[in-house]
């Protein structure tokens, strides 16, 4: 068997872009303050105020992929943090406590912190702990959970806080918001989001030009560099390479037999190894719920209001029904035959409720779903043999279903109706 992962030509460009990003945080910033922000924070406002940003979650993913996260988690545990805490939080805190033991010496010290609880409540406590250790001010942006729909009251509540955020940045580092710059950043953010959305959509092709590891690796700029020219340029290049693969009929997996959907964050330390177990059976992940979480365009018109609505409605801030619906849509759009849910020990908001979602999705689409227990960074939660067994049994199930896409529910009683 040849190389199971087909490297993209843009891979080295991506690597350079990310290296430049991390290096630039260490260069003299000529008075530009540095903020650490959560992945769901309205970064456009900070960029428009000339604040440089770093993402501890992305840093955690890098540590995970480099097999460095578990040791940092243990550092945090030694300081009394629970092993049940999210491994991004533990990795980040571990790197704060022991920077010399952390990749790149940890993230450079920030001037301010911004945590938005649209992804989880963990980030609030995590950033409070970081603010405490680093002696820097913290702004918490509170976005109410959307049980049914975003109400005008909810948007108004978030919008008020965005104004307070601007005041907070003005007060703590003396930067002012330029309306002109905000418009430009929002335009670039939307351009990135549009390109990324189109790239993902090209995976509807048979064979799919990308597999899960490609999606996970290439999502970094949409998170970390959203709203920058660098990200727009990179995604233009990736876009044309992926379009080329589609045109030439080049698939990410040599002989694509099964098209699958992935749910939850990647298993970073096992990125290629884990997905290769599927590749061995000709199974390709053509879509996922994770890398699509950053594909929301800021609506036209009043940008601040648009930001309030966009960030309040992120994927993890919505009901299980919404998430099941999204998965069902993806299954139909991408012609998927099975789905795999990573029950991620770290990420409670993403993982709790997966069994309920799985039931809803199977009931409506008739396709089987596999739940795999692991963790995005903490390698102590990855048990190879049980995972291999589940994958094999799952593929056997797909095979016995004839490998064909069926829209008829094949299940007569999937528990609750």
């Amino acid at each position, binding site marked *: 068997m040849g190389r199971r992962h087909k490297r993209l030509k843009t891979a080295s460009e991506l690597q350079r872009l990310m290296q430049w990003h991390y290096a630039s945080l260490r260069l003299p910033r000529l008075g530009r303050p540095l903020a650490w922000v959560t992945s769901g924070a309205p970064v456009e406002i900070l960029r428009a105020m000339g604040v440089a940003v770093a993402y501890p979650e992305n840093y955690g993913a890098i540590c995970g992929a480099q097999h460095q996260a578990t040791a940092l988690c243990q550092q945090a545990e030694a300081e009394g943090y629970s092993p049940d805490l999210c491994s991004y939080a533990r990795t980040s805190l571990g790197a704060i406590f022991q920077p010399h033991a952390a990749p790149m010496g940890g993230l450079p010290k920030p001037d301010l912190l911004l945590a938005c609880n649209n992804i989880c409540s963990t980030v609030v406590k995590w950033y409070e702990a970081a603010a405490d250790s680093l002696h820097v001010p913290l702004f918490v942006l509170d976005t109410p959970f959307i049980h049914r729909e975003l109400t005008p009251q909810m948007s108004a509540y978030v919008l008020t806080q965005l104004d307070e955020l601007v005041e907070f940045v003005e007060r703590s580092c003396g930067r002012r918001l330029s309306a002109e710059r905000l418009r430009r950043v929002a335009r670039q953010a939307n351009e990135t989001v549009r390109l990324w959305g189109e790239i993902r959509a090209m995976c509807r092709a048979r064979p799919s030009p990308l597999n899960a590891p490609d999606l996970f690796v290439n999502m970094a700029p949409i998170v970390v560099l959203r709203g920058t020219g660098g990200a727009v340029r990179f995604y233009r290049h990736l876009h044309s390479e992926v379009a080329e693969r589609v045109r030439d009929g080049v698939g990410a997996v040599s002989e694509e037999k099964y098209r699958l959907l992935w749910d939850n964050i990647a298993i970073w330390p096992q990125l290629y190894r884990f997905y290769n177990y599927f590749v061995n059976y000709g199974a390709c992940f053509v879509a996922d719920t994770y890398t699509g979480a950053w594909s929301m365009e800021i609506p036209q018109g009043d940008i601040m209001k648009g930001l309030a609505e966009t960030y309040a409605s992120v994927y993890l801030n919505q009901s299980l029904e919404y998430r099941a619906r999204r998965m069902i849509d993806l299954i139909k759009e991408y012609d998927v035959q099975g789905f795999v849910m990573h029950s991620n020990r770290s990420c409670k908001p993403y993982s709790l409720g997966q069994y309920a979602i799985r039931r809803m999705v199977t009931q409506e689409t008739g396709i089987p779903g596999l739940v795999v227990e692991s963790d995005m960074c903490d390698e102590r939660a990855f048990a190879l043999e049980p995972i291999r067994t589940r994958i094999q*049994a799952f593929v056997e199930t797909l095979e016995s279903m004839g490998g064909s896409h069926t829209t008829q529910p094949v299940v007569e009683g999937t528990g609750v109706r």
Partner: protein
Amino acid sequence: MAAQAYLGIDIGSLTVKVVALDEQAHILGRGLAEAGYGGQEAAEFLVNKVLQESSVLPGAVACTVVTGYGRVRFAAADREVSEISCHARGAMHLNQATRTVIDIGGQDSKAIRLDESGRVVDFAMNDKCAAGTGRFLEVMAGALGVSVGQLGALALTSSTPVTISSTCTVFAESEAVSHISRGATRQDVARGLLQAICSRVLGLTARVGMLPAVVLTGGVALNEGIVAELSRQSATVVWVPPDPQTVGALGAALYALQYGKTK
């Protein structure tokens, strides 16, 4: 003997099982042995023993399928198939009405749901935890100073079981010990423990949706206390096939028959 044989081997964490079938899927022989270290040697030894006992020449084996945790390293097989598919196949062969298979093995338990044609439509396995497995029973029998078999018999005589609230094997053991030291009878503690393991297993089964007929396989199925408790808690008849430990190996042998014929 010109007839050909089809072999199914199940290499589990505690035991290895072998079933040999003829072309009509009749059982020529079967056997069970302790796995020892890794199970490979034990499996080879058992295969020879079963073949000898059923007077099948090694050259007459047309196809071999291996399953179980040791399957990956067993080189002498034509194919490896997961335990899920093998248990489903074996149970369906023994009882055409099977819609749910519950297998409680040494280190894992699984629930499998089938459709009318025997196809696996869903399955769930316990995750990285010994609660709800044969290992749990062993630890608890040890704590009560009885054998695993006696544990089930004891439980059947209790009408006032204690409550074991922890699902963790280690914590449940200390809970049991503290019940004993507070004067609870062995019977009541035994029943409390079986109730705990059964609720865990039924929780797993609920994930796939429990439909009759329910077939219980694996070594734990020999424990009458467990069978009674599972039936009571689920209000469903739980059927135990004769020789429940070899159902996975039987399924593997049926796959061998299928592959051997289409080879």
